């Protein structure tokens, strides 16, 4: 029984570890897309989850690691009966997500600079976005979304 449980667990958890480089974003998106397709998620869900994970990882590469290319990003993907949970871990600089305001396009227009768009997309496309940090040790982004699994 225990072995069967472990096997079931194993099947529902996947992990990808990549270096903090933007060239790895396509690899990250493929990983999400492949695993989510295999679980029968709808195309729309897959696209929204893929974009949210891209945004989270882009923020980690640019801000947590400040474009340092050899940081590590660990992406864990877990499915249960009703939702997908993605945990993204880095060892970069901790930031306060509450310090990121919602996007203001008029302001961006004046400044020619954008910020916070990715976080806004994540919050909009996922059901829940959480940040957990132990400064100097790790930062974790937890993304979750209820899933509609297509009948196979």
């Amino acid at each position, binding site marked *: 029984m225990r072995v069967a449980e472990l096997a079931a667990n194993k099947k529902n958890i996947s992990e990808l570890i990549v270096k903090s480089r933007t060239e790895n974003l396509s690899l990250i998106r493929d990983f999400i897309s492949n695993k989510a397709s295999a679980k029968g998620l709808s195309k729309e869900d897959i696209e929204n989850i893929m974009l949210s994970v891209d*945004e989270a990882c882009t923020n980690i590469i640019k801000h947590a690691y400040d474009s340092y290319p050899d940081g590590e990003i660990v992406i864990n993907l877990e499915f249960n009966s009703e939702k997908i949970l993605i945990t993204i871990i880095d060892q970069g600089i901790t930031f306060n997500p509450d310090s990121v305001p919602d996007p203001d*396009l008029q302001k961006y227009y004046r400044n020619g600079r954008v910020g916070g768009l*990715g976080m806004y997309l994540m919050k909009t496309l996922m059901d829940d976005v959480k940040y957990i940090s132990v400064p100097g040790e790790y930062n974790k982004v937890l993304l979750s979304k209820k899933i509609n699994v297509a009948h196979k």
Partner: protein
Amino acid sequence: MAEFSTSIVNKGDVSVINLSGYLDAHTAPTLENNFTDLIDQNKFKIVVNFNELAYISSAGLGVFMAYIENIRNNNGDIKLTNMNEKVFNIFDLLGFPLLYEIFKTEEEAVIKYNESSGVGSK
């Protein structure tokens, strides 16, 4: 792997940038270079055709914000065309349709420039 590419076609004095593939934080600099090149050549009437674009993240959206004010200050614009539904939805979520003219076809966007550059019109 052909991730992202662009090509520029001149239609009269309008420059059309065709996008193809995946526009993300890794590939956005390619498009940034296109805009800076056009601006250097004083080409400010720009149409961006999304027909072959499969994917865009906020890093790609940021490119449009970075140049728009400079371009409009030079009597130009960035008009967007041929977006698939998925790409349009991302633009829409972030409120971009308030700031940019989005057309179904490239022709409509080019015509709009030609109309507004006529003598006596605005």
